[in-house]
Structures are given as C-alpha cells and as structure tokens.
C-alpha cells in the first residue's frame, strides 16, 4: 500500500432516496473502518445526519454539507487530503467525483483517486464508451445507440423496431428508463430524460430474459474474483431493484454459471476496475446467449446485498484494495484463518424482496418496470427457497402471512396482475396456481422461470394438505420447512396461534441456529452471523451468556429508515460497553446493524413474535430492547411481555398506554393536559356526529401507526367516510380515533430520555411548517429559534407529568401543538424517534447511549446543556417524487419523504440553505414561477414576493396570483391556466426550462381534485425544477437566499461547532 496517503476524503451519498438508500451507510462505514485500521485520517462529507458513518467514533472530520461540486471542492481546499474515495457514496458520490476531476479540482489540489480510476468510471458511466470498450474484447451488449436528442432517439428506434428500451446515462437506480411500445411513448420519455441528463440510450428490448448479476472484486495485481452471483425471480423488464432476487443463482447450469463468471472477470479486467463492482446480464432462457446490461464501478445496492448474502465484507475489502493491497494479503474476516481471495460457497440461499409504499401517494402509478420505486428491501435466509421466500414476505411488514393466506383481491384479476405487475405480483401468481392456471401459462404471462413457479406451487400444495389433513408431526414439520409461520398455520387450521407453538414444542418441531461462514463449513469459522431454519437438526453453536437482545429496525419504508439503524447500533454498542454480550436481530441488508462486527451475535431473522421468542428461548438473554428499532420492535412489546419475555426499560403495559390512542387520550384527560378534541370510533354514524360537533376538518387515525399510514384529514363528510374505510383495513385489531384537526398551529417536539419516571435529558425542536405536516416531512430546527420561552417551559412541564404518569425508563418523543398561548399534546412515543440521531448529533450527547444505560439500570443523572447552543442544526426532508410517477408532491399528514439531511450553521438562514442544498435544491438564477392558492396565502407571501423582485428575479405568476401581485405593485408575467390553451402556460414554461424555481402553495385540504396546481407541481418534479409547496418554508427560503449567497455558507466541520 502507498505510504504517501495520510488523509483521505470519502464522499457519502446524502439523504436516503429511492434508488439510493441505506446501503451506502453500510459501505461508507466499512470503508472508514478499513482506513482507520491503516491509521489514515478520514474526512467525510455527508449531510445525512442519521447515518452511522457520521458518528463521532468513525471519521476524523465530518462535514454535514451537500455532496456536490461546490461544497466538496471547498472541503478539499481546506482539508488537503492526498486521496479521495468515490465508490462508497452511490451515484451521488460518483457523479460528484467525475465533476471534480473534469474541472481539474483533483489535479489542482493533488488528490489521488483511490480505487477504480476516473477513466474507468467514465467508461462505465458513458453508455457509448462502455459499449465501445466491451466491443474491443467481443463481449455482447444490447444493440443500442447513445443519442443526445429526442429526434435521434426516434430515428434509431425506428431502425430497431418497437418495443425498445430507453435508458438514461448518469442516472441512479435506472431513473428515466423504460420500455417504449411506440414512438409516442418514446417521445414523451425522451423529453423528460433530457431535462435531467445529456444523453440517453435506445436499445433492443430483452423482455423476459433471465436477469443475472455478479459482484466482482479485482486488485491491482489483476487478481479477480466473483464473490456472489444473483438471479432475479422477476426477469428482464423489471428493474433489479424492483425484483425479487435470489442468491446464488438457482436455474443456471455449471456451464452457464461459469460462462457468465468468466465474462465478468474478462470485462472487469479490461475496464481496469480496482475494488468492487457489479455486472448485470440479460440471459436467454432458451440458449446460452447473453447481453451485458451494465457495470456499476462502485459499491451498490446489489453489493450490499451480496455482502450480507455471503458474509464477505465487500466494502471493507474494496477500501483496502483502493489503498493498494492485494487480495491475498487480506484475511477472510469470518474465518480469520483463510484468505480474502476466494469465492464464498453458500450452504443456504437468500431471497431479497423490495418494499414499496406506493399506496401512500395520491395518484401514484403502481405498475413496476425498469425504474425503481421501492423504498427499502428485506433479505431472508433459508435452506429451502420456500422457507426464505415466505420469511421475506413477512419481513416486508405489509400485513402478509406469507405466500398464501393473505385474502388479497386483484381488481382486474390475477392474469392482469401477472402481465402488468405491481407490488402484488407474487401473490397473484400463487393465487393463479391455486386456481389451477397451468404453470406454462403463468410462465408465458410473466417470464418467471418455471423453477420458481414450481416452488410456489409446492407452497400452495402444502396449504392444501394443511386444510385437508390432521396436523401430524410430519405435516407440521413439512409446513415449517416450507416457511409457514405459526400464525399462518393457525389461520388455516382455525385455531389460536399459541396452540401451534405448543404443538410444535410437544412434537419437537423446532428451528435450529446455523452460522453463515462463507465456506459451507469447510473450515472452522468464528462467525457470529446466524440464521434459523427448520431444514436442519443440529444447532451450530451454544447459547451465549449474560446477553442483551436488541431488535433492529426491520425493513426501511417511508417513516422508518436509517435513523432507527443508528439507534439500534448505538444501543448495541452501549450495552457492549457495559459488559453484556450483545445480540442483534434484524433482517435489512441495507443496514450497519446487520454488520457482524457491531454485535456479539447477529441473527439475520424476522422481527416477529414467533421468531424473537424462538431466539429468546434459545439464548435466554437478560432482556430485550424493543425501544430503539422503531415501530416494528415497539409493537411486539405487549405480546412478548405476555410470553414472559423480559422487556428492558418502560413496562410494556405503559408502552401500550401511550400507543393506544384511546388509553393515551384518557390519560391526558386525567392529567388535565390539553389535547385536540377526540373520540374513539365505533361506527361511521357516530363519527359523523362527532365531526359535526367539533367542526370539520377532522383527523382520522388508527392505533399503532408509523409514518401516518392510513392517517387522513377529512375536510367534509364524504371524505370522512372514505378515510374510515381505509383506516379499518390497515389495523383491524386496534381501535380508530378521530380528532379535531387544528390549523395554523406551531409544532414542537421533545425527544428525551427518562429513568424511573424522571426526565434526565431532553432536546426541544420546532418545525418551520405549521402543524398538519407529518413530523417526518417537516423542517426541524434545534434549538428553537421562534418558540417563546414560556412555551418551552410549559412543554417541559407537561413532559415531566407524562413521564411520571407512564413511569418511563428509556427513550421517548412527545409532539406538541402551540396556538394562541395554548399547548396541546398530539402524540407520545415511548421509544426512540426518528429525530434521535439529529438531536444527539446537534447537542453532542448520545441520547441512545444514555437511554440504554438507563434501561440497564445505570444512573444517568447529570446536567446536560441542550438548549443554550452557540450554533444550530436544521433537518430537512428528502423527497423522491420524481421516482413515483403521478404522485402529488404536496406535504400532508401522511409522510411522503424517503430520507433527510441536516446541516449545522450559525444562523437559521445559513443552516436552512445548506440543508436544502443537501437535498438537491439549487439557488434560483433568473426566473421564478409563483402560484398561491387562497387570499391568505397571497397576502402572507407578499413580503417574500417583494424580496424576490428586489433580488432581480423575473416573476411568472398564475392568473389570480398575478392579479394580486400586480395590484400590490409587483411587476410579473401572467401565466395562463392549462385549460385556456394560451401561451405562456406553466407546463410549457417548466418543460422549456424557462423557470428555475416553482413556488406553488395549494389552498385548503382537499386532495381529490386533479387541479391546475397538481399539474404544475408534477411538471416541476418531472423536469427536476426545485419546488416548494409550503408557505412557511417558502417564506423562509426566500428570506434565506435574500440574506445569504452561496459563498456566505461556511465550510465548517462538525467539531468546529461547539
């Protein structure tokens, strides 16, 4: 390795968004660890405050700044690192690195690119170059042409014949890619793509070919290995990030497997990659013909999956190779005896399934295709495909029992679902098999290999047997081996779930613990990476002693993602420091908590009552921590408590008193703490009567919600009835509560830790937006800048009352409304909340460590200053609307953001701008389009409109806004309504790139109308024009750009704020 390298800068991936999620926290964290092992100083740029990689124990310098050309250049100028690593921050880091190289920044400051060279990155990212490179060694790629405009695209497509595939260059997760069936579709797709990228590729359509991937590692000595291959259950046509994926491949013969393996190695050597990359193939299901689809010259979602699937730490190894090590010089970290230069042999298989949240978005187009829409993924391990698949389906946490027993309805029938797949396709296939549709027909409709279909058929046949026969030991074992849960079996046999568990125990039908050791037991391994299976008869190891179990976050979805991983990891590290053996249960391949060096034992398993209890009964730990993994973990508290599991911290009975809105509201009444008027709902008639009494709008919400699933505002009776029907679908076991929806109030949150009913530490934050926006979508400011001291004091007092009443020990979060000097409590969670990493990093007290200590009985009494800070933090949401075609990009009580970033600064304006730029916002240059719904909004925004004018912006305004601005002396250009068909209209202005910032503030709460405003908002998203839809945020943003230019935003690392 090169001795000259003393300091390295690593670029993170920024906020979680669709196509680029938690996997880059995992890869970045591993890279930092690899560098630290070499005593190299690490500078990290990443505004994602909820990540592990931005924790104090990893990098030496952390910059919570946007990962873009301007900010990274400035950091390089200041830090003067000798090396830069671009492979660990997804497409964001790679694109930023290319820009730094092209503009000579790296050369100027003598920064070496460690790992894969820039030229190789260019060769893989530029489609035309890529194809040229592969042609040089006679490797087949799809017939294609890179074009720079729509006309050229149409011309080539004509030559190829429709359907054709269109892909955008330089885009993450297949954004702007898709199949065009005709010229009209292609025209539309090209127009949108060219708004964001300079080049697209039109290529032959390989629909229904098998889709295969290899993860390849190469060192500078030209040693090259494939660590893992993967096969998509869903063939070509559905993006690999949207597909069910299995590793290793299941339907490839030796010749096929090794043919593709050899091509992988040949290609990667020819390209000259150093480190890790991923290569994707389309593979003909009827011959050995193939096409290389793409190479990602960086760590990716697939490489994170491959790492977890095999136990091979790809990111760690890639970082070492980037420093110049050879593969044979690095040890296999699982066996600690063998070399890293080998290819793992699996004696199990894994199934990955994406998780979608499309139903959350009004108007979202749900059919899956070649663009990513999923927000998370799960991985299940088993020794049968059926076992892993059914586990994985339950892990999605979407209320499914497994492949069967879900009572799903398919609006247009199962065949339609097969041909136009949505997130429910796998269930439709199973349903089709049950209905007797021949496997060959299903194959023709879906292209899913028959091998997978036979396995689904096996599940339906076991279901049939369960219906028909008595539950003998053999049948019970057969069902469990095929991944049926106790609950699933109980449902079929119409008995209570505990009876099945009892029956299993009597018959000794029990799961065994197996290790993942990378070598299929060939060498002794000290591995602590574990899973459970019914396809085995012996445990690989003995229970640990003096252990603590931590439940992880489970699948990432809107409302629960990397922030809970940060919590779970920190809880584990804290327990470890206190001398406990730590056991982590989690199944999310994108996380750091599923890195086996975080804990003493990792169970890559379902976070379900059944499985947690299985592990509990085997390991006999001192307790289970359910309060750091978010809602999945928290929801298990009562049931586990009922099974005599020792739950750490706050009593599950008290957790229930906070989670059950009925009980919680009653408690507040008893404490004489104010809250919005509410009522438990028993019938629709009663609900209507109540709503009339308190006046619409009302808020409808079921118990046990996270991210506002099925939470809705009803502005009128019709809407109320619709909401109620939705709510009961989501949570049939829990009551539904409706409450008065209060408009115009401020929202305040307190995150804290209590011990034995006493408040020990807290952080108070305010939202920029008024209440009514889900707190996960709100812009959060810490410490508060606009909240009165009196309000803070009263919130604190109420917090103490609640803590005492619920006898809390551990983390909690309480949300308040403040309006007209009144304070109302709207929510209370007796667990770590989404904002724990944010408040911990801003205040510099690790709230999770304190909470863990409190729960384990260590006195955490102390004086913690969390209010009087000389700097501030602002957290802003990251939306992924551009990925969710058709969705209305407007803030609501339902959470819509997929991630968040935060920034530090000296005042509100500076901090807000840094944070917003971190989510991809840009300073507007010349032209702003303003469209304000309602008189109040227009008046309220007048001052901001004036500021925009004074800054010299050309203002375009829609009809009523234009008139209002005119009357108030603000010169502007009128924009006609779309239906008037008079130029200029907003859609054209956006499409033609004539505006570079859109402010559209909708009026009122009605979501159902497809309005002019909706079309404007959607157009802004589709053409990547910055958009603000919230009045308060718009005002603050305008004020901020009025006061601060880009050069005023300071380049300061985290430790410089103190």
């Amino acid at each position, binding site marked *: 390795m090169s001795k000259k390298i003393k300091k390295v800068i690593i670029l993170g991936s920024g906020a979680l968004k669709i196509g680029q999620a938690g996997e880059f926290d995992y890869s970045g964290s591993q890279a930092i660890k690899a560098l630290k092992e070499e005593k190299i100083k690490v500078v990290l740029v990443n505004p994602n405050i909820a990540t592990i990689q931005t924790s104090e124990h990893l990098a030496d310098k952390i910059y919570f700044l946007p990962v873009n050309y301007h900010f990274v250049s400035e950091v390089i100028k200041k830090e003067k690192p000798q090396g830069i690593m671009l492979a660990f921050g997804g497409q964001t880091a790679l694109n930023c690195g290319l820009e730094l190289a092209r503009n000579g920044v790296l050369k100027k400051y003598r920064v070496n690119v460690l790992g894969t060279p820039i030229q190789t990155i260019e060769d893989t990212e530029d489609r035309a170059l890529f194809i040229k490179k592969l042609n040089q060694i006679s490797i087949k790629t799809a017939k294609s042409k890179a074009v720079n405009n729509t006309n050229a695209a149409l011309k080539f497509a004509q030559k190829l014949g429709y359907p054709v595939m269109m892909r955008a260059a330089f885009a993450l997760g297949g954004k702007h890619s898709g199949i065009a069936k005709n010229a009209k579709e292609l025209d539309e797709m090209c127009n949108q793509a060219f708004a964001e990228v300079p080049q697209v590729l039109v290529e032959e359509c390989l629909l229904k070919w098998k889709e295969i991937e290899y993860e390849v590692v190469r060192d500078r000595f030209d040693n090259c290995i494939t660590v893992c291959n993967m096969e998509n259950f869903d063939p070509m046509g559905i993006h690999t990030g949207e597909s069910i994926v299995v590793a290793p491949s299941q339907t490839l013969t030796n010749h096929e497997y090794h043919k593709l393996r050899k091509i992988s190695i040949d290609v990667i050597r020819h390209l000259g990659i150093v480190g890790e990359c991923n290569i994707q193939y389309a593979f003909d299901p009827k011959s050995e013909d193939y096409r290389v689809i793409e190479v990602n010259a960086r760590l990716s979602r697939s490489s994170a999956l491959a790492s977890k699937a095999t136990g091979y730490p790809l990111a760690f190894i890639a970082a070492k190779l980037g420093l110049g090590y050879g593969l044979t010089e690095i040890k296999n970290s699982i066996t600690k005896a063998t070399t890293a230069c080998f290819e793992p042999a699996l004696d199990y298989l894994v199934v990955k399934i994406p998780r979608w949240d499309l139903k959350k978005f009004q108007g979202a187009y749900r059919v899956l295709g070649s663009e990513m829409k999923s927000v998370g993924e799960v991985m299940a391990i088993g020794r049968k495909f059926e076992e892993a698949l059914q586990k994985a389906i339950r892990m999605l946490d979407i209320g499914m029992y497994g492949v069967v027993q879900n009572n799903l309805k398919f609006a247009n029938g199962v065949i339609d679902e097969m041909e136009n797949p949505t997130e429910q396709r796998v269930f439709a296939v199973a349903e089709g098999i049950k209905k007797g549709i021949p496997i060959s027909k299903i194959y023709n409709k879906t292209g899913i290999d028959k091998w997978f279909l036979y396995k689904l058929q096996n599940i339906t046949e076991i279901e049939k047997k369960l219906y028909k026969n008595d539950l003998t030991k053999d049948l019970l074992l057969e069902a469990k081996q095929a991944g049926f849960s106790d609950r699933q079996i109980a449902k079929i046999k119409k008995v209570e779930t505990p009876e099945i568990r009892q029956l299993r125990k009597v018959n000794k039908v029990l799961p065994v613990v197996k290790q993942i050791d990378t*070598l299929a037991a060939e060498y002794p391994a000290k591995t602590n990476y574990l899973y459970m299976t019914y396809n085995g008869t012996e445990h690989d190891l003995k229970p640990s002693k003096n252990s603590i179990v931590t439940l992880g976050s489970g699948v990432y979805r809107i409302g629960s993602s990397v922030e809970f991983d940060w919590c779970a990891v920190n809880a584990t590290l804290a327990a470890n420091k206190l001398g406990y053996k730590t056991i982590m249960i989690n199944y999310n391949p994108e996380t750091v908590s599923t890195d086996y060096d975080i804990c003493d034992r990792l169970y890559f398993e379902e976070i379900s009552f059944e499985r947690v209890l299985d592990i509990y009964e085997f390991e006999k730990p001192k307790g289970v921590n359910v309060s750091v993994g978010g809602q999945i973990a928290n929801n298990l508290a009562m049931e586990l408590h009922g099974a005599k599991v020792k739950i750490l911290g706050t009593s599950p009975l008290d957790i229930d008193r906070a989670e059950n809105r009925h009980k919680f509201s009653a408690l507040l009444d008893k404490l004489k703490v104010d809250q919005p008027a509410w009522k438990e709902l028993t019938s629709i008639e009663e609900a209507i009567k109540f709503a009339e009494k308190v006046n619409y709008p009302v808020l409808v919400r079921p118990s046990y919600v996270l991210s506002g699933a099925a939470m809705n505002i009803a502005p009128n009776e019709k809407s109320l009835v619709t909401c109620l029907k939705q709510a009961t679908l989501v949570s049939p076991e829990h009551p539904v509560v409706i409450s008065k929806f209060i408009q115009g109030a401020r929202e305040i949150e307190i995150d804290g830790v209590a011990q034995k009913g006493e408040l020990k530490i807290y952080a108070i934050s305010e939202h920029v937006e008024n209440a009514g926006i889900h707190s996960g979508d709100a812009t959060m400011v810490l410490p508060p800048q606009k909240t009165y001291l009196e309000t803070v004091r009263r919130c604190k007092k109420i917090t103490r009352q609640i803590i005492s009443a619920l006898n809390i020990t551990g983390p909690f979060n309480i949300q308040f409304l403040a309006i007209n000097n009144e304070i109302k409590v709207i929510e209370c969670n007796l667990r770590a909340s989404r904002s724990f990493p944010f408040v911990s990093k801003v205040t510099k007290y690790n709230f999770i460590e304190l909470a863990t200590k409190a729960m384990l009985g260590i006195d955490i009494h102390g004086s913690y200053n969390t209010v009087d800070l000389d700097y501030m933090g602002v957290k802003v949401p990251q939306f992924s609307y551009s990925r969710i075609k058709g969705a209305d990009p407007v803030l609501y009580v339902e959470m819509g953001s997929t991630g968040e970033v935060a920034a530090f600064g000296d005042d509100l304006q500076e901090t807000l701008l840094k944070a917003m730029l971190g989510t991809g916002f840009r300073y507007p240059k010349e032209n702003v389009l303003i469209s304000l719904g309602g008189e109040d909004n227009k008046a309220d925004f007048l001052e901001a409109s004036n500021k925009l004018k004074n800054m010299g912006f050309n203002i375009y305004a829609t009809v009523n806004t234009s008139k209002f601005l005119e009357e108030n002396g603000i010169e502007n250009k009128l924009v006609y309504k779309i239906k008037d068909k008079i130029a200029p209209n907003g859609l054209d202005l956006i499409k033609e790139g004539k505006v570079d910032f859109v402010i559209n503030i909708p009026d009122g709460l009605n979501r159902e109308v497809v309005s002019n405003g909706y079309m404007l908002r959607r157009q802004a998203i589709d053409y990547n024009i910055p958009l603000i839809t919230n009045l308060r945020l718009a005002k603050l943003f305008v004020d901020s750009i009025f006061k601060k230019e880009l050069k005023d935003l300071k380049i300061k690392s985290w430790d410089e704020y103190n």
Partner: protein
Amino acid sequence: MNNQKTKLILEDGTEFEGFGFGTKKSIAGEIVFNTGMVGYPESFTDPSYAGQILVLTYPLIGNYGVPQEIKKNKMFTNFESEKIQIQGLIVSEYSKKHSHWNAKSSLDQWLKRYKIPAIEGIDTRALTMKLRSKGVMLGKIEQADKVIDFYDPNKEILADKVSCKRIINYKAGRTKIVMIDVGVKNNIIRSFQKRNITVIRVPWNYDLTKLKYHGLFISNGPGDPKTCEVTINNIKKSLAKNIPTFGICFGNQLLALAAGGDTYKLKFGHRSQNQPCVEVGTNRCYITSQNHGYAVNAKKLPPGFKEWFVNANDKTNEGIKHIRKPFMSVQFHPEATPGPVDTDYLFDKFVKMIKR
C-alpha cells in the same frame, strides 16, 4: 422417487435420517463433502469420486435437471465420463421439479438409470461439520431393510476400476500426447482437442515404452496414489527420457511419487470450486476447482522439483514443477467442469512445452 425414510450411518455410529430418492438400495463407501454450488451432472460423472458417497453442501440440488447423453468424439458431451461414478448421494433438498431448456430427465430418473441411491432431508451442514472435525469417514446408506458392511474404497486400486480397458485414440493435430487414464475427466480430453492435440488414452497400467509421443499427461483419478505402483514405474521410465509431462490432481501425486516425492491423506480433502491457489513467488492467486483426498507432501518434494502452487487457505501443495526439466503438475483442475475456468491457460502452457 421412493420417498421412504432412509438412514445414513457413519462408522462412528452417528445416524442421520432422511427420505430416499434415486434407486432404492443399500450402499457403503467413503463419505466426502463438496461445497460447489453448481455442476452436479459433471461432479457425479467425475471418476475421482469412485467409491465415495457424496454430500453436497449446497442445499438445493436437481434444479436444472440433467441433459441428454449425446456422444461426440467418443465422449458424452455435458458429462465427465460414461456413467455416474459416485456410490451414493446425500443432499438437503432434492428439487423434485426441474426447469431448463437443456434438461432431458430429472436427477431422480438419471440416478435410477445408473442404480445410484440418494437421500434428501439430511442436515448436510451438521454432517459436513462432523466430517470436517473428525475427518472423512466410512458410511453407508441403508434401505429396503438390507443391512450391509462398511467398505473402504482406498484399500483398492480404484484406478483399475475407472480406467479405460484399452487404448482409445482421439485424433487431432500432429502433436501427440499419451494420456495415462487413472480416471480421466472428459473435459481434459476436450481441452487438448480444442488445441488440436492428438490424445492417445491408455489404461492405467499400460506399458508406455512401446509408444511414441511428444508429451505425457497423467490424469486425475480416485483413491490412494500409492496403490498404483505399476503406473508410478511407467511414469519413471518416461521421465527418464525427459519427455514433457503434465499431471492433474491424482496425476500431480503420481508425478511426485514417480520422481521420488511423497504423498499423504488429507483430513477431509478439498472438494469445491473456490479453492484459492497462489502461484509461488507471485501475487497472483487463482480460484480453482478441486476434488482430492490425498496431497503431495511439500516437505518431501522430489529432487529437482519446487513448489509451483500453494493453497492460500491451508498452505497445502497445489502443484509442483521441475527446476530445469519439462515436468509439471497441479493438484487442482484446470479443465474445470464443474468450476471456474481461470487456469485453463495451463493447457496452453503444456502445449508450448511440448512444441518447444
């Protein structure tokens, strides 16, 4: 499918129970495990497995069925010999339904055709861990109430059982090699044919002095190399003439013995497709396919030989090379099938050696 409860019994008395498939009969042999994830048709027909009951650690076997037996150039395409060579098969799950455009039969049907018994539903990981810690063991599959004795194949000259019975000529170019068949895999022959080399395949004990050839190749094969004294003597005579010589696997061991070195039995052998082998004196490491229970003793190398390849995991010998003379051999399988094809270049090296 016979789908009846069937037992696997190890010589230490351990029993595993599963369900039978393939042919219903009792069989005994040496139990070995292989960690490869693909390539069962190739593995099962590898003559090096003669006398062995094979445990596959990958849990799903049979997924893509078995291709048709078609002869081309006096060899089955898609297979490594004329028949299934393993004694019996142990898997976690047999995939009862297969799917592949190239499949002609199911694994079950194919096993039945060659009268091979198999068991599924075994905790193959637990079994493998046992074999790893205690070493390879004798074992038996018992079904149909037929009790049988244990059988140790290593006491026999297995090469005699699997070798061709008379000379077979595979005509190609002018360059001729003699191939001592102690259990050769078809793909080795194909590898030479691809390079336009004529192969004269001779039985394991054939007297080479009567033949004229440019190079000598010693094949892979089953059992203990020391049982093949005749072969070792024949090789000695050939080496004395300085004829370029290349050995693979068993051939590596026979070359070592013929040149004055020694071999020994490994605790549980190497049977997999992911064995890393470092070329001594370089940073280059190759991923190789392997199937052997015996190894060349690196501490007692034959005079004039040096270590050529070493296993990066356990440092055992993976190949030897004469310092001056054109003799070389490797413990792994450059012909692959099954496994990675990274070391295919060794055939080119041998061809060059002959033509020099």
